[in-house]
């Protein structure tokens, strides 16, 4: 995604109509470009990666003209024959060997249009160009260059005057002295010699993909320009070249072809601004959109989106490289028709929905625990070793760690809800007591047999904090919880749980667990299986969490209750 800023006066001049604020906020956004900011002078739009042609104010104006019905149909671009040529050194093949060029003549730059042109180059190199890694581009004053041009490599000690400099520096020095060299120089880390353009007078025109030479720089007086697009992938190189040349053509420039000679004798003629063709499947379109468009209406809509029609074929402008499949035309028809014109309706599908058993189960647990007067809290599943082990005085065990964690607070998936709940108590020391809270949440356990090496374990933890609180009170809460949990009635009757008696006959086995006070902690067993723990939190643990009042809690492994 890219944010572009357009000068409103410039944009509206290109569109050919004065637009009101609501034309932007209500109409143009429906082309699929969220409006991020609007002032009297400027507008900021977010451009999605499928419509890179909208990164240029010219391309945006072209699309807006169609969408607003000012000028519709396929834009025509002429590419004139010429004798301009570039040859590519074989040492660049496979490294950064995709290169295509164009010449644009008779430009009349204004302050607005040159600023727009600079923004376009920057945005293209950042988005499609992946910060120049995949593709970079450069523009030069054509009148200063002599053809043929060579795309080749040069020793690191070779010197030239880069953009913005008055003295010669070496290619190697560019990497730490030139601002663009500092930003992008890392890309040339493993190169023995650096990729450069050299003109027929043997002058270095620029180092790829960092900077051009000062002698051929573009100014507001430049009339004719040479464009170079160089990268590692043909599709992206051509897309950028098409977007730049169509933008300049819309400013009134005449576009000329440049031939690229490859060592393999291959010759590339660029730019190719001819329209592509794709068959329109109107039945498919109407079915998916639930519309009843006649061929004539579909044609009108497509023309609004700046496509052409020839019989049953849609003519796709060269800058719309996102159209790959008939579904892409369907979407453009939907946008052209106007998303706001679609009447949403709830489908006529006869099904009876059922919550997942897991959800019914969880709801039941929540209902009972809330009924016991506990307040629900939600905390993060991500935690850290300090919380999960040290603070609750547990030995470290194998756990799911986070690779390259961003902060020390979140370095692992939690094993227990106890530290999470203790943290909530700690945060609420200044609030009213007693505090009764619970969380029903996921924990993560290492399991070698699982496909992912780990499994989720749903747990319930309920705790009370007050100045006078003890094991007995928590035990009576646990008893009530179990008594209700085993009941088969009401809306939850469909949920299969064990017989009530198996829960009401739960047992407690005293344990020695450092998290809890000795003699006031027990394992909870149902049918002989350990399913949880109950106890009074050890003062040392309370201290570790900076909790001033006693805490008593129980934690149940819900997976084992089923």
């Amino acid at each position, binding site marked *: 995604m890219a944010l572009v800023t357009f000068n409103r006066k410039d944009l509206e001049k290109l569109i050919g109509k004065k637009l009101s604020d609501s034309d932007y906020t209500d109409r143009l956004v429906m082309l699929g470009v*969220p409006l991020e900011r609007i002032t009297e002078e400027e507008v900021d739009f977010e451009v*999605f990666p499928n419509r890179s042609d909208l990164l240029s104010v010219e391309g945006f104006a072209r699309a807006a003209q169609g969408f607003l019905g000012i000028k519709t149909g396929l834009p025509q671009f002429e590419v004139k024959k010429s004798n301009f040529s570039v040859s590519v050194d074989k040492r660049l093949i496979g490294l950064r060997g995709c290169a295509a060029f164009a010449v644009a003549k008779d430009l009349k730059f204004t302050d607005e249009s040159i600023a727009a042109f600079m923004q376009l180059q920057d945005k293209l190199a950042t988005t499609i160009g992946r910060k120049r890694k995949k593709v970079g581009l450069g523009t030069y004053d054509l009148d200063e260059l002599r053809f043929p041009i060579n795309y080749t490599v040069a020793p690191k000690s070779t010197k030239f005057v880069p953009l913005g400099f008055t003295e010669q520096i070496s290619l190697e020095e560019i990497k730490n002295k030139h601002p663009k060299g500092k930003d992008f120089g890392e890309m040339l880390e493993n190169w023995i010699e650096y990729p450069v353009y050299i003109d027929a007078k043997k002058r270095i025109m620029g180092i790829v993909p960092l900077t051009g030479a000062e002698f051929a720089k573009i100014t507001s007086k430049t009339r004719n320009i040479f464009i170079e697009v160089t990268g590692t992938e043909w599709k992206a190189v051509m897309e950028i070249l098409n977007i730049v040349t169509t933008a300049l053509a819309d400013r009134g420039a005449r576009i000329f072809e440049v031939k690229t000679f490859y060592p393999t004798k291959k010759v590339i003629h660029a730019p190719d601004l001819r329209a592509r063709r794709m068959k329109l499947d109107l039945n498919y379109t109407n079915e998916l959109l639930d519309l009843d468009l006649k061929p004539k209406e579909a044609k009108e809509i497509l023309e609004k989106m700046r496509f052409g029609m020839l019989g049953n074929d849609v003519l796709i402008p060269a800058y719309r490289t996102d159209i790959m499949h008939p*579904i892409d035309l369907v979407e453009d028809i939907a946008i052209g028709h106007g*998303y706001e014109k679609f009447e949403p309706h709830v489908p006529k599908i006869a099904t009876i929905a059922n919550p997942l058993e897991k959800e019914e189960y969880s709801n039941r647990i929540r209902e009972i625990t809330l009924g016991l007067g506990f307040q629900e809290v*939600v905390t*993060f599943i991500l935690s850290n070793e300090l919380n999960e082990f040290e603070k609750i005085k547990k030995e470290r065990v194998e756990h799911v760690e986070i690779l390259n964690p961003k902060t020390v607070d979140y370095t692992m998936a939690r094993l227990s809800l106890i530290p999470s709940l203790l943290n909530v108590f700690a945060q609420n020391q200044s609030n009213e007591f007693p*505090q009764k809270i619970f969380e029903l949440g996921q924990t993560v356990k290492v399991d070698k047999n699982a496909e992912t090496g780990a499994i989720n374990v749903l747990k319930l933890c309920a705790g009370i904090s007050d100045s006078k609180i003890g094991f007995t009170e928590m035990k009576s809460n646990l008893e009530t919880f179990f008594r209700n949990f085993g009941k088969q009635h009401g809306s939850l009757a469909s949920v299969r749980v064990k017989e009530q008696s198996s829960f009401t006959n739960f047992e407690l086995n005293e344990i020695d667990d450092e998290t809890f006070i000795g003699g006031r902690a027990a394992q909870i067993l149902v049918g002989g299986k350990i399913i949880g723990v109950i106890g009074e939190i050890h003062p040392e643990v309370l201290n570790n969490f900076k909790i001033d009042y006693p805490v008593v809690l129980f934690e149940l492994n819900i997976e084992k209750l089923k």
Partner: protein
Amino acid sequence: MPEFTQIDGIVADENVTFKDLLGYLKEFFYRLGFEKIRFRPAYFPYTEMSTEPEVYLEERGEWLEMGGSGIFRPEVTEPLGIDVPVLAWGLSLERPIMLKLGLKDIRSFYYFNNLKWLREVGIF
């Protein structure tokens, strides 16, 4: 925010259409209490049509994006042996709740867990 709530939905059927997708989403937001809803075209690599539902906030005088949705591209569903349209959406829960409760800081949900506030705010 290391964690947040995601609400995902998928509907696959022979005759579902784009209007059905909009219908589900409109109903969903309507029931959350948002009356003015629009669907702005958007882009996701795996859906076509793609749309981001937006709700209008009178007090702020602007549209606010609420999530992403679309119909899966045939290239995505065909390898799975599915040849019917598949509607899909992924929405957030935090944003509508923030709007409803007038919260300014998304961290109110998880970082603070202020029991006094939770008690007062009641059930959304």
